[in-house]
Structure formats: C-alpha cells, structure tokens
C-alpha cells in the first residue's frame, strides 16, 4: 500500500535549434503565443556594462496597470470593448489569485476572455464551460472561455445580455488585475485612464536590475551541437547552470565538499565579466520580441561573446501558458522559455513546463 516514495511528477523540456534568418523560423510565433510574462533575465557574457541600445529598449517597455477590485463584466462594456479590447493589444490577468484554488481570469489580445473557476462559482455563474484537464477524481475546476470579438457578442444581442447578466448579477466576479495595452509611454490618449477612473489603480513600470558578474565560468556552447553530444553541455545542464547564475550559486565546489558538489558543466571557459540583468513586471510578448531583435543586432558590433542568453518566466498562476493551452499548478507551475543566440544568428529555444501543462509547442 505504501507507494514507491521515489516517484515524482512529470516535467517537459523542448529544445529547438534554428536560425533567425531563415524564414520558416517560428521564434516570433513562439514568443507571441506566450502572453503573460513575469520576468526576463538577460545574460551577456564577455561584456562589462549593459549596452546602451539594449538598455533603452528595456526602458521603453510598455507600462502596466495594477487595478484593485475590478469586476470582470467591465471588460464586456461597450466603451471597453470599443476602445481597448478590439484593438488587439490588450492583456489582462487577475493577480493575487491562485490557479489551483481560486477563480482566475485572463484576457488575451485575441479578445478571448478565459475564466478558470472553482466548482461553486461555475455552478452559480451559468456560462457554459468545460472541466479542467488536470482535475483529480472529483472535477473541482472548470474553464469558461468567452470570445469577446465574436459577432454574437455585439452589445445588444441576446447572448451579450445573457453573458453580461451572468457576470453582473449571478456571480459578481471581482479581483485585482494587471492590465497593459502595450503603449510604451504614458497612456497617450487617456483611453485607459477614463475607463479606470472609478477604480483605484496605479501605473507601474517594469523594474530593471542589472549586475556584472566577475570571473564566472561559462559553458562554451557550439551552435550545431544542441543535444550536447560533445561540443557543448546537455540542455538540462545548461539550464541548471543558468539558474545557478541567476540565483548566484557558486559553481566551483569540489566533489568532496560537504555542503554542495555543484560544478559548472564541461566544456567550460572562464569569463572575466558578464552582465546579468533582470526585468520583472507584466511584460507583453511584443516587448520580448523587440528585445530579441535588439540582441540579434547586438552581435553586429564586434565583441567576444560567443552566445547570449535571454530567459523569460511566465506567470505561475496564469490559466494559459502557450496560446490557449490550459496551465495548472500541482506542486509547481513553472512555464518558462529561454533563447540562446549565437554569433551566426543561430538560436536555441528551450521551453520548460511543469507537471500540469500541455507539451510546449
């Protein structure tokens, strides 16, 4: 009866190797489909200060808004639909709600409103939805997805009234929200401003934090050897090393040391200094694409770096990870992807997910 205590839940890692220049390369698609990004960490070996062009790309990342106690039916109201949702660059994610416990709402730029509801709310709400893919014996979570740009949801139609009635009278879904309309500077035409006037909200900027790391051992990667047969280390070892750098874990312990035996993977080379910069906040995929483009032309100037790494962490409590694939949280809800760009415009794209997630595309 006592289960084998050695088992643990599944995790997936997909590695893709391609070149930025060749036209079928799908790096744009992958980035744009991962809508809600919480943190970006950029590692530039062999450079002592963050290049100024990269810096100002980060500086005009779009700002995002934290709105307190915003009811969900607001997204259906005409002025919201017209000014913001229909524009196709509006992201909203409910924050301070846990995907494995409470109701979580997310609004994708495609106009799809995804509600991940617990059983009681779903039975009260009255909107058709399907049970979650990751429910154990008893289904306790349902996913309702409403396409706001759908013709049948034009204000005034019966379906529109019904949905509005459900979200307003039956169950007043309200929570704090993180919104962004991908306008970099201050909200120019004040559209979002007057929408949020009745609610307490604050405009936030993604926080940038960069540091230079002295004489670090970096694994030397060869662009052709993705699987780590000999010229470079295996993908998993590289990701582990990247995590160690991000958490400033010392990588030169000897095998006999009592505390930790972690070593930087072979083949490796010492690097005098490298820059590690992290950006946290609600970062829409557009900004990640801009940063990626900037990194590609970073190699245009002469520098010694063989490769550059860009890691993007998704939100743990977000109902969707890539595209509209359902994302759950069992013991950890990690969904992250990482670009390694080489001098010759080759790139490796790692996508890692935890136990309750579809296989990354």
């Amino acid at each position, binding site marked *: 009866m006592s289960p084998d205590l050695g088992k643990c839940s599944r995790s997936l890692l997909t590695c893709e*190797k391609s070149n930025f220049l060749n036209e*079928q390369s799908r790096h744009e698609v992958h980035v744009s489909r991962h809508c809600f990004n919480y943190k970006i960490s950029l590692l530039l070996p062999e450079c002592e200060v963050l290049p100024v062009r990269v810096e100002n790309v980060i500086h005009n990342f779009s700002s995002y808004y934290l709105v307190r106690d915003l009811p969900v039916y607001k997204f259906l109201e005409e002025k919201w639909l017209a000014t913001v949702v229909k524009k196709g660059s509006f992201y909203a994610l409910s924050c301070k709600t846990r995907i494995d416990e409470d109701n979580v709402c997310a609004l994708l730029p495609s106009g799809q409103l995804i509600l991940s509801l617990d059983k009681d709310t779903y039975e009260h709400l009255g909107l058709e939805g399907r049970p979650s893919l990751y429910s154990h014996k008893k289904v306790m979570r349902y996913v309702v997805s409403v396409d706001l740009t759908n013709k049948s949801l034009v204000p005034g139609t019966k379906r529109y009234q019904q949905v509005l009635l459900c979200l307003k009278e039956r169950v007043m879904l309200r929570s704090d929200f*993180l919104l962004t309309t991908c306008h970099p500077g201050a909200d120019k035409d004040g559209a979002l401003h007057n929408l949020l006037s009745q609610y307490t909200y604050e405009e936030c900027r993604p926080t940038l934090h960069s540091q230079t790391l002295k004489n670090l051992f970096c694994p030397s990667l060869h662009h*052709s050897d993705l699987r780590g047969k000999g010229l470079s280390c295996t993908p998993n070892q590289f990701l582990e090393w990247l995590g160690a750098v991000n958490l400033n*874990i010392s990588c030169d312990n000897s095998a006999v040391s009592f505390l930790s035996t972690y070593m930087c993977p072979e083949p490796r080379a010492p690097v005098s200094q490298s820059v590690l910069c992290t950006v946290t906040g609600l970062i829409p995929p557009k900004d990640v694409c801009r940063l990626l483009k900037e990194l590609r032309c970073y190699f245009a100037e002469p520098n010694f770096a063989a490769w550059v790494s860009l890691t993007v*962490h998704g939100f743990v409590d977000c109902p969707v990870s890539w595209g509209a694939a359902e994302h759950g949280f069992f013991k950890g809800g990690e969904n992250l992807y990482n670009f390694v760009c080489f001098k*010759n415009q*080759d790139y490796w794209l790692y996508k890692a997910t935890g136990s309750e997630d579809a296989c990354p595309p």
Partner: protein
Amino acid sequence: MEEKSASYERVVYKNPSEYHYMKIHLVLENADTSISAEEFKYLIISGLKDLYGEVGAAIPFDVLTFDQTALSAILRVFNSGLVKLWSALTLTGSYANKPCAFRVTQVSPFLLALSGNSREMEV
C-alpha cells in the same frame, strides 16, 4: 566565421532533469540564534536519519546556497530522494530542543524556475 545556417532540429525531453530543487527557509522561535551552513545541513540530515534511518541519512543532497541572516537555502536532491527529503523537512520539529519549522517556498525540477516565481511578486 559564417557557417551555413544550421538545419532545423527539435528535441522533446520528458523528465529531463534528474534533480529537484527546493527553496526553503527555517523559522526559529527566537530569531537571533545563528546557524552556520554546516549546522543547517546537519539539522536536515538528522531529520532524515530520524524518519528514514541510516538509509535516509545517506540520501545525497546539496545545499546550493545558504543565507545566514534569512536562514533560507536552496537544496538540490535526486528525484528519488525528493519525497523523503521533503517529508523529513516537514516532520522536523526542533533544533537544539527549541521548536523550529522548515517552510518550503518552492519546489521545481528546474533551477531556473526558482529564480522567477510570480507568487513572490510584491503587488
């Protein structure tokens, strides 16, 4: 050294990493007792020894980092030893017969995921 653009290649690994990583921190009754990294690891090993005996105490795990002030650490353990280590941490109740408690903040098969946990976003 422009080489011909690499051919497209895609690999999917299932359970790629044979390690699991845990971000934990220790809560003590009187917060001023200072604990060194070795004592910290020894406390965990004695918890393992108490619950799983000699076999348990032999489970290899690394204390990747240890922050003395916040008494927080990141552990690395083999997949097979994760459940045993985690349950031993849970059931450890005292250090130098003063009550203590391990709080596990995050567990993940990817060390990188520990550096970007959106649940720690102060909002």
